């Protein structure tokens, strides 16, 4: 987060960028490209795809090595989101390559990457570019001898049942996911200093990443809670990325599997996968946690027009409207922790905004007794939500020459003294000059 703080100074003019991730004009018509290794995935993961379709997405399937593959035409992106379910692809077909995928993200589009034990360098590089490092050992898998899923028939404890979710209603929805999520795949780690990446599903402290086939000679590079099973990234342009080391996470088979975590008395009819994947895909595709702030305005108390400049010690009112995208429409965003800064190199005023519940936030305060070029800043960065960084420049001038007090009460003795001196000198001169 420390790094983040540096980059928040976006002009209001840049605001459209915040909504760039999906077209605000026609947000309901979204196109998703799914790249597959082979078309059999279409049926084996059909529940996930169908849930996307039922939410209004226009899902298009293509083979990862399709020679006609292209994300954009004539400078326009053809898709709003990309799902890479092609872990073993060494090279994309057509004009698509690593740089194209990254540019796709950098222009504000969403991405879901799923790898598995056969993950190619290409997929791993996509993840690295996004700030997620897959285990370097290409044949290593996540193994957990304590919190594996009992229902698994294999005895190697690679089917992991994890319920170590991120504590965020925004990312995972309001409904609590009761059943553990089944995971079978490779481990990745995230850099703790990287403020953009979130571990959504972590492995337990007893997990480790190792190659099943070979003997474990030295301690595994990744172990314990350093292993992340599912991570999400929210880039600075609010493009959202989900990265996981398990393609099976999305499969119909694991969706339907009954699950019992080792050492746990509870057995669930159905794993938490479906709910987990659906909720997280809602987040990735901006159906939740996407905020927009509009109509930042301010005026002096008692006036309605926005001034070009304030004077020190003016009383002013500040307004901003914040809405959240619900998947269908913009709903008022209600929170009690939105703050406005009156900022010149450091915040001189920091005020919590109060809301009317309809999206309008307001505060009133006095301009500090210092002149300079200030900014109204709204920096709202909360877990799972898009970052709001609004600023509006406003100069503050000192008093004009005629805005000071004309007469100061405490100085009356001095006024009196000077005027009596003047009068006395005048009379003295007359007497001295003419009284002879």
């Amino acid at each position: 987060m420390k790094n983040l703080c540096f980059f928040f100074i976006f002009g209001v003019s840049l605001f459209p960028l915040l909504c760039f991730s999906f077209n605000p004009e026609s947000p309901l018509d979204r196109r998703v490209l799914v790249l597959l290794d082979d078309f059999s995935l279409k049926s084996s993961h059909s529940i996930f795809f169908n849930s996307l379709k039922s939410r209004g997405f226009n899902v298009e399937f293509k083979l990862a090595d399709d020679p006609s593959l292209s994300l954009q035409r004539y400078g326009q992106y053809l898709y709003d989101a990309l799902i890479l379910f092609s872990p073993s692809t060494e090279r994309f077909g057509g004009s698509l390559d690593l740089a194209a995928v990254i540019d796709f993200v950098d222009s504000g589009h969403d991405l879901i990457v799923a790898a598995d034990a056969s993950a190619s360098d290409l997929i791993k590089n996509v993840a690295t570019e996004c700030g997620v490092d897959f285990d370097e050992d290409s044949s290593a898998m996540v193994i957990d001898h304590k919190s594996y899923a009992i229902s698994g028939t294999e005895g190697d404890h690679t089917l992991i049942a994890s319920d170590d979710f991120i504590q965020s209603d925004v990312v995972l929805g309001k409904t609590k996911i009761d059943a553990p999520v089944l995971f079978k795949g490779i481990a990745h780690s995230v850099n703790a200093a990287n403020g953009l990446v979130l571990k959504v599903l972590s492995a337990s402290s007893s997990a480790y990443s190792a190659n099943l086939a070979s003997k474990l000679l030295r301690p595994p590079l990744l172990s314990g809670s350093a292993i992340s099973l599912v991570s999400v990234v929210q880039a600075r342009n609010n493009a959202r990325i989900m990265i996981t080391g398990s393609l099976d996470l999305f499969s119909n088979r694991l969706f339907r599997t009954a699950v019992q975590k080792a050492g746990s008395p509870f057995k669930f009819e159905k794993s938490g996968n479906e709910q987990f994947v659906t909720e997280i895909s809602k987040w990735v595709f901006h159906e939740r946690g996407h905020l927009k702030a509009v109509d930042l305005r301010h005026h002096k108390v008692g006036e309605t027009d926005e001034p070009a400049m304030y004077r020190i010690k003016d009383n002013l009112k500040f307004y901003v409207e914040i809405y959240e995208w619900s998947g269908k429409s913009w709903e008022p965003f209600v929170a009690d922790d939105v703050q406005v800064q009156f900022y010149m190199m450091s915040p001189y005023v920091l005020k919590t905004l109060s809301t009317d519940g309809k999206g309008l936030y307001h505060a009133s305060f006095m301009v500090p007794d210092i002149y300079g070029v200030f900014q109204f800043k709204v920096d709202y960065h909360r877990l799972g939500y898009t970052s709001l960084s609004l600023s509006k420049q406003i100069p503050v001038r000192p008093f004009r020459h005629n805005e000071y007090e004309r007469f100061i009460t405490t100085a009356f003795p001095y006024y009196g003294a000077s005027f009596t001196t003047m009068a006395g000198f005048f009379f003295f001169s007359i007497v001295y000059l003419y009284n002879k």
Partner: protein
Amino acid sequence: MTAPETSITTVPRLYTNKTLRNAFGGVLSFFILLLIGVLAFSIRLFSVIKYESVIHEFDPYFNYRVTQFLTKKGIYEFWNWFDDRTWYPLGRVIGGTVYPGLTLTAGTLWWLLNSLNIPLSVETVCVFTAPIFSAFASWATYLLTKEVKGAGAGLTAAALLAMVPSYISRSVAGSYDNEAVAIFALIFTFYLYIKTLNTGSLFYATLNSIAYFYMVCSWGGYTFIINLIPMHVLLCIVTGRYSSRLYIVYAPLVVLGTLLAALVPVVGFNAVMTSEHFASFLVFIIVHVVAFVYYIKGILSPKMFKVAVTLVVSVGLAVCCAVIAVLIALVASSPTKGWSGRSLSLLDPTYASKYIPIIASVSEHQPPTWPSYFMDINVLAFLVPAGIIACFLPLSDASSFVVLYIATSVYFSGVMVRLMLVLAPAACITSGIALSQAFDVFTRSIKFQLPGLSSNAEVHAGETSSATAEAQNDAVNTGKSEETLKDRSSRKSKKKEREHVEKPSTKAKVEKKRLLALPLEASVISLLLLVLLGAFYVVHCVWAAAEAYSAPSIVLTSHSHDGLHVFDDFREAYAWLRHNTDVDDKVASWWDYGYQTTAMANRTVIVDNNTWNNTHIATVGTAMSSPEKAAWEIFHSLDVKYVLVVFGGLVGYPSDDINKFLWMVRIGGGVFPHIKEPDYLRDGQYRIDSQATPTMLNCLMYKLSYYRFVETDGKGFDRVRQTEIGKKYFKLTHFEEVFTTHHWMVRIYKLKPSKNRIRGKTKKSKSKTSSTSSPKRNGRKKKNPWH
């Protein structure tokens, strides 16, 4: 008038002849003055003819911008102007931090011309303000010198001042700076001071205060006046020249002058709070004490007076000691000892370079070299001593002032090259006196010895020839002695009276003059030599005006074998900024270019030539001397969008940012100690060749200056430093080049936005394998700073 009176009694016919001659002389000197004005104006037009009618250099651009504001918005808006486009984000209260004299003068000129239906643009008025005021200044010099040594000396001094190179350097057309009007105000204030001293008129004393007010409005150099005049008053008192005229000239100036000075917002309470002004108050007290002593002396018997003196002196000394002790304690308790940095560097020339790099970094604050004296005042340097001697024959109040003026200004000019400007008028006045006296002596000797002239005519011719010079002096003397007659008790005046009684005897005078006569041949040769000297001076001045001092410095020219080259890179760059960036974008550059950026490109700057905030400048200096990432963070925290650097390596323009870089390091290091000058030095030198230190090669200034430089000639040969640069191939990670002017003199970079993503750890083995599959990615990886 003594001389005419004697003439009336002896030869009435000659008297009428003489008034005719006087009238003729008056008309002649009027036309001479007119021509001097024309000369002063037109010698400064070389810059317009050779280049174009533009504002020059740095500070004039600010003054021009302020004047535009004044003419557009009016005086109250100007007074209350808070400028939010400079010193971002601090802003600057222009109305309270600017000397408004120049702006108001030019604004008034413009308004006057416009109300007369002469539609000149503000820029034109600004360009020609300096030449107009140079003409005024030469007229003021005439008046001042006339008060000191008569009209002849006055005309000579005015002619000299009209074309003295030192003054031309600051007042060519387009050099729209405070000094342009301040030198006129300085000389005019001195004139009114001398005039008041000679006449003892309260009217002139009041005018003097108003002239002083105008000077305070115009230039910070007014402190020179408010220290020089008390010094002269003190000198007069010490040498026993106290008179009521001295009181009349000084007391109103201090009281009215200080009150008026306090009205100028930029001075305000400084007029009574800073020690630059304390000398005047101290002398003010002394004048009163002296006046009181003279008064007491008049009413007491000598015996009583002696008793009173011993009493008062013993008590007074004790009190004085106490007061001085308190004052010293007060002043010593303040960190700069009550003196502002710039004034301290005048008294102790090493002060600024030791403690205040921001002051020492300005080239015009450096001590001058000997050649610059010869360049700037030329032959006057040799005439000044003669003029000083002439001032002592005889020494009057006025001539002692000139001596004091020249002595102090020589000292100050030796401290700071900028103050050559104050020396120039003093040198012109003394040289004018010297030349005029020399001409006087020589022409008189020739007249005496030319055959065919009757001895009677000789006498009168001799007298009239010197009349121009002497009459005024006589008038002064008579006026003085008449007045001093009233001071009954003054021993001094009695002595003068005796002199006065002796003076009218023409015979004695003629006798004296006969003695001064030189041989004919010697006189003729000397006259020729003097004319030659004058001619040499004129030639030098015209050359200096045409070649040395007319360059506007925003447009450069160079002559080479294939003709004239014009370097208009600065305006190219500013125009690019104006047309291609957002109106609220902030541009960072070294402070030299701040005024030009705000005025020409109309973009907000971080620091500018009004170096009021050392920390802010140090921040920019630190950014320039930091590695790219640290610099990016500093600039980003200041909302900077563009960085502008001036680079002369391609065309050999020596005053570029690399040559100024040592000041960025010093000023930056003065505030932020992690910038250490030794890190940038190799063998005590700033080097950019292969011997340069790694810190130097990695700092932002080096990178922004030499980015892609090797592409120009394949070697990266810097023509200013005459060496090949140390690091030739490098990429910028946090900045991107957006514009480089035709001759690479100005380079503009844009801050890259922060990375959209933060990459994971780089895996070397992976990147090697992937480099074959996608070479594009490799480039990205190298550029990427986020790991």
